[in-house]
C-alpha cells in the first residue's frame, strides 16, 4: 500500500459502497503558543456516510473537539490555523469555500451541539425566538412560519407544553431541557450532518439516556448523519455504527462498532477498553494504561503512543505508523500500528 494517495489508507468496504457525505483527508489544525506550535489535529482521516453515526472517541486533549470545530471552520485564528489536509462535504471542499457560503452551510446543512448548552444559548432571548431566528435566517421563513416551526421542533424533541416553553429563557430550564432546546435548534433546518460534541457528558445518567434515545429517534426520522464525539465508550457502543479512536491528534484505529469492541487491534484501544471498571471483576486491579497523554507541543517521535505502549519496539520510536487496513480483518477495519494486536485480548 502506497502512502501518497491518502484515500488509499482508508479501507474499502461498506465505506466504499456509498459516497461519503463527509471525508477528512490528512486534516491538520495547529495552534501557535508561546512555547511553540501545538499539533492538536495532525493528519486525521475520517469518513461519514449518509444516515450513519460515527463515534469519535478519545481522552481529553486528543484533538476530537478541534476536529469538529475544524469541520465547521470555527477554530479561532489566531491562535489556530489550518496546516494541511482537506475537508470534503457533499462534494465540496469546505476549506476553499468563501466565508459567505460557509455560513450558509453552518447551522443549515451541518449543525453542531455542545456539551454545555448554556454557553451556546443566548441568555437574553426566549428559546422559541432563538430557534425561530435560525430558521428565518437559513430557510427564509416568515416570522409567523418560523415561530410555528420553533414550537413544532420543541414538541419533536419531547418538551412538554411546547408553546409555553418557547417563551422560557434558558436559565429557567433544567440541564436536560436546555440540551433538548439546543438539539431542537440544531435540527430545525434539517441538517444533513449533526456534530454532537459530548452532548450528554454534563447530564445525569437517566437524562443522558433520554437524550441519546432522542438523537437516535431524530436520526431515524430525518436520515441525517451524525458525528458523535465522546470520551464515553459506553455511549459509543450504544449509538455508533462505526468508531474512530483518536490519540494525540490522529485516528489510530477505526472499524465498525461491533468489530472494534470485539477485536480491537491498536494497543491503545485495547488498553482503553480494558481499563473500564465495568469489565473487571469487583475488587480486582484495573489494567490501567501507565503514564499520561503527551502534550500537543511535544509529541513523541515515531508512534505517539510508544512511550505508554506495552508492545513498543525500536521501529515504533523511529517510524510513525500509517492508518492501514488491519491484517486479516473481517470487513472494514483500519489500524495505525506496526505491531497490531492479533487476537482477542
Amino acid at each position, binding site marked *: 500500500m502506497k502512502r501518497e494517495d491518502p484515500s488509499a489508507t482508508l479501507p474499502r468496504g461498506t465505506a466504499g459502497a456509498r459516497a461519503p457525505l463527509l471525508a477528512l483527508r490528512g486534516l491538520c489544525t495547529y495552534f501557535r503558543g508561546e512555547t511553540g506550535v501545538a499539533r492538536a489535529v495532525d493528519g486525521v482521516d475520517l469518513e461519514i456516510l449518509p444516515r450513519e453515526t460515527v463515534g469519535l472517541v478519545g*481522552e*481529553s486533549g486528543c484533538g476530537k473537539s478541534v476536529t469538529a470545530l475544524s469541520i465547521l471552520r470555527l477554530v479561532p485564528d489566531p491562535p489556530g490555523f489550518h496546516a494541511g489536509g482537506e475537508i470534503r462535504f457533499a462534494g465540496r471542499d469546505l476549506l476553499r469555500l468563501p466565508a459567505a457560503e460557509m455560513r450558509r452551510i453552518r447551522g443549515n446543512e451541518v449543525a453542531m451541539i455542545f456539551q454545555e448548552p448554556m454557553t451556546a444559548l443566548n441568555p437574553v432571548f426566549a428559546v422559541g425566538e432563538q430557534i425561530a431566528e435560525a430558521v428565518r435566517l437559513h430557510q427564509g421563513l416568515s416570522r409567523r412560519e418560523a415561530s410555528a416551526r420553533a414550537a413544532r421542533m420543541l414538541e419533536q424533541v419531547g418538551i412538554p407544553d411546547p408553546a409555553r416553553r418557547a417563551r422560557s429563557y434558558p436559565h429557567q430550564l*433544567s*440541564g*436536560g*431541557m436546555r440540551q433538548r432546546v439546543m438539539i431542537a435548534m440544531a435540527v430545525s433546518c434539517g441538517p444533513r450532518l449533526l456534530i454532537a460534541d459530548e452532548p450528554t457528558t454534563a447530564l*445525569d*445518567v*437517566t*437524562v*443522558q*439516556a*433520554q437524550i*441519546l*434515545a432522542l438523537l437516535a429517534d431524530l436520526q431515524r426520522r430525518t436520515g441525517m448523519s451524525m458525528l458523535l464525539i465522546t*470520551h*464515553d*465508550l*459506553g*455511549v*459509543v*457502543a*450504544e449509538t*455508533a455504527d462505526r468508531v474512530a479512536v483518536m490519540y494525540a491528534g490522529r485516528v489510530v484505529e477505526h472499524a465498525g*462498532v*461491533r468489530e472494534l*469492541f*470485539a477485536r480491537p487491534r491498536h494497543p491503545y484501544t485495547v*488498553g*482503553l*477498553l480494558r*481499563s*473500564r*471498571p*465495568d*469489565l*473487571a471483576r*469487583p*475488587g*480486582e*486491579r*484495573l*489494567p*490501567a*494504561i*501507565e503514564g*499520561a*497523554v503527551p502534550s500537543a507541543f511535544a509529541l513523541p517521535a515515531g508512534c505517539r503512543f510508544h512511550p505508554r505502549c506495552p508492545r513498543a519496539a525500536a521501529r515504533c520510536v523511529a517510524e510513525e505508523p500509517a492508518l492501514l487496513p488491519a491484517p486479516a480483518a473481517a470487513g472494514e477495519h483500519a489500524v495505525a500500528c506496526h505491531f497490531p494486536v492479533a487476537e482477542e485480548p
Partner: protein
Amino acid sequence: MIDDVLLAVRDLAKHFPVRRGVLGRRVGEVKAVDGVSFHMGRGETLSLVGESGCGKTTAARTLLRLLEPTHGEALYRPAPEAAPVPLFQLPPRELRRWRRDLQIIFQDPYESLNPRLSVGQIVSEGLRVHRLARGREIEARVVELLERVGLDAGARDRFPHEFSGGQRQRIGIARALAVRPRFIVCDEAVSALDVSIQAQIVNLLRDLQAEYGLSFLFIAHDLAVVRHISDRIAVMYLGRIVEEGTREEIFLRPAHPYTQALLAAVPRADPARRRERILLRGDVPSPLDPPPGCHFRPRCPIAEEQCAAAFPAFVPLSPTHRAACLKADGPAHTGRP
C-alpha cells in the same frame, strides 16, 4: 451486619434557607439532606450514589462538619473499644483534633489545591497543623508520601499548575494521607479523570485502603466505578436514601424502581448487547418543592395512588438490604453482576 462500626450516622439533615428580596426575607428552605442514616465499618467502602442535587455531596460534607448539620447525630469510634465521639456536638477545639482522622479528596484537584503553595507545602500543611512531624522529619515524610502516591520526590518544589489532572489528584491524595487518617471522603474523586487515568487512581486508592485499613465514603455518579470499588452502596434521591445494600444486592437485585432505572440508564460498552432501556420521564424535581409522599413518584413507572400519602418507610429485604418503596418486596430483577 458489621461488627466493627467506625461511623454511625443517624437522621442527618442539612437544610439551606432560601431568601428573597432586598431584605433577604426567608421564604422557604431546601432540604438538601433530609434524614439520612447509615453506618460504616472499619476498612469498608460505602458509596453514596445518585444524580445531581440528590444531596450526596452535602451529606458527606456535613458529616465532616465542613457544613454545620441542621440536625442528626454522627458517632465516630476511633478504635474498636474506644468511646464513641459525637462529631456534631464537639466544640471547635475538640473538632480540630478529630478532624485529623477524617479527610476528604475533591473532584477537581485544581480548585482544591492552593496554586501559590508548592506541592511540598501543600502536602506538609497537615503535618505542621497537627504537629505530627518537625524539621527534617517533615521533609522525609513528604518525600515518602509523594513516592507512595506515585510521584517523584522532585514534585515537592513544583506548583499545582505544572501537573496533569491525574497527577494533581495524586497530590490531593498525598495531602489527605499525610495526617494518617482512618476515614476519607472521596467526593467525585475520579469523576473528572480520563478512563486510563481513572483506572490508575482507582488502583491507588484500593492499594492505600489495603495498606492502611482506610474506610472510604465514596461519592460518585459513575456506577461502573462504584460497582468496582464499593462494599456497600446507598442510593440517594432528593435528599433521602431510597435503597441500601451490598454491592451484589444493589447491582443484582435492585428493589427500588429508581435504582432499577439508574442501572438501566448506564450505557453498556457492549455493542453486541444493545437494548431498549427503561426511560424515566422528566427530570429530577426541584429540592425546593419536592413532591409529597414518595419523592420519586412523578417519574416512577409503577407508582400508585397510595405512594402520594407519605414518604415510604424502609422495607427490609435482607439483613443488609433495604428499600424505601411500598412495592419493594422482593427478589428477581434484571441487573448484572
